[in-house]
């Protein structure tokens, strides 16, 4: 009899959290589709399995570029960290990778080697709207790049060329771009991998 009471209560209890997925069915509005994970993040699927959403990375980020998701990224992303490069790029200080308790962000040192080991995404220039490509010398993105000469080189009229193999995707160029909308964008590594496998 006692066991029966427990089982009844237990099953009633299991039903309560099942209401949570209904939130995912709410009309989405403007769901942010393109975002970066902090440096050192595991591949996206593994990252989602590992990140418990404690917010320590966002807490220590001295640049305040790491935000945590609300419902705008769907339930999967709830409470996980994101970086929106256009509002604030990552300065690659690696503070977040030092504190992650679960290893969702791999530990990286704030050195040049550590910086080069980051793979958050790759920058792509939209030449049709870039000032430098339409004869007005700009170079803002190049000045912002933490790996100038490696990840990005400039030519005539400071026209930027991104070298995908060295670009870490920190997003500082996207943040710095003076054109509105931005003429240089970071495509997150997850999206690039998805594209490669497709």
């Amino acid at each position, binding site marked *: 009899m006692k066991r029966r009471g427990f089982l009844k209560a237990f099953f009633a209890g299991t039903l309560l959290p099942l209401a949570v997925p209904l939130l995912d069915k709410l009309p989405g509005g403007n769901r942010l589709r393109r975002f970066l994970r902090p440096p050192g993040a595991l591949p996206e699927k593994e990252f989602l*399995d590992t990140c418990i959403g404690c917010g*320590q990375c966002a*807490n220590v980020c001295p640049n305040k570029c790491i935000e945590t998701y609300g419902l705008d990224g769907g339930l999967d992303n*709830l409470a996980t960290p994101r970086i929106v490069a256009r509002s604030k790029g990552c300065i690659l200080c690696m503070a977040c990778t030092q504190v992650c308790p679960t290893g969702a962000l791999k530990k990286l040192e704030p050195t040049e080697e550590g910086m080069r080991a980051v793979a958050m995404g790759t920058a792509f220039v939209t030449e049709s709207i870039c000032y430098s490509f339409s004869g007005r010398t700009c170079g803002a993105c190049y000045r912002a790049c933490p790996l100038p000469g490696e990840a990005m080189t400039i030519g005539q009229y400071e026209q930027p060329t991104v070298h995908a193999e060295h670009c870490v995707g920190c997003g500082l160029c996207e943040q710095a771009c003076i054109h509105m909308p931005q003429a240089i964008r970071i495509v997150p590594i997850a999206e690039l991998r998805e594209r490669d496998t497709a």
Partner: protein
Amino acid sequence: MAAGEKSRWGLYGKGLLVLSLFTRTGVLALLCFLAFSTEYANLKMGHNNARLVELSAGKPMRIAYEWTEKFLSLFGEPEEVVRTSGGMTWSIRVLGMPFTDPIAALSLLAKHHRWTWSIALGLIAPLTIAFFFGRVFCAYICPASLAFFVTSRIRSLLEKFFYFPDIRLHHGVAWGVLAGGLVVMLLFGHGIWTLILPYFAMGQTIFQAIAFGTLSVAAASLGLFLLVDVLLGKQFTCRYLCPTGRLLGWIGARQAVTIRRDAAHCLESCRSCADVCPLSVNPKVDETRDCSVCGECVTICPTQCLSIGREKR
């Protein structure tokens, strides 16, 4: 038992209650402070100068900045302290010392099948405390419990004018919430705990509000829990819904420190201890499971036959 000794226990209980209010406020203040430390680190990196902070962010921010700097200097180099502290009661790091919620560890184990040293180290303190002292987390640390405490007082105030039911459920419900939560977690991700665990919701709300000035979705779930508390029963969430409380109660089933009853002085007709208990423990029948050592029953007992001490076995 001498008369002087009797009244001492009542005071002792009140002392514990005051202490618990104090520590809970402290934890809330810590969470607010940690959230603000993000802003501080930002200003420190950007300006490193109080006058520049005032010029760019205004006088109140300068004052906050200067006080934060002074406070952090007590523990060492301010930037270093900020770098080694952060998080919320779900998983927190204070001066480099990690603390992990057992549910967070369980969730990670269920989904990722792997732990890290940080998680394991962080579990030591919570599990040890739960083993010896039971659910003290609920009465002394849980940042949401202060809100529940206030709500229960509001509820008893409102009860003078309205009727509210006091629904009692089986303890199995919280185990069900834990199991259901784990299933939903496996489907969606660890983030859903922000909506299920009140203290995580509180942490998330505070962090989002102070560090980013946004209202977190977790605030809605916290509000829902408080509403349930008012409408369905005193401390309903803590008693029947919170899986962490249930888990800690289970770990501390044989807790060493708990309520003791002096049966010789206990009144037959009195039920005040059972009525006042926020976690629906009934000290009257020497039931001590789920006791959070909050001291409310010790304070209210008219004959002071309750005390807190080592469980005799």
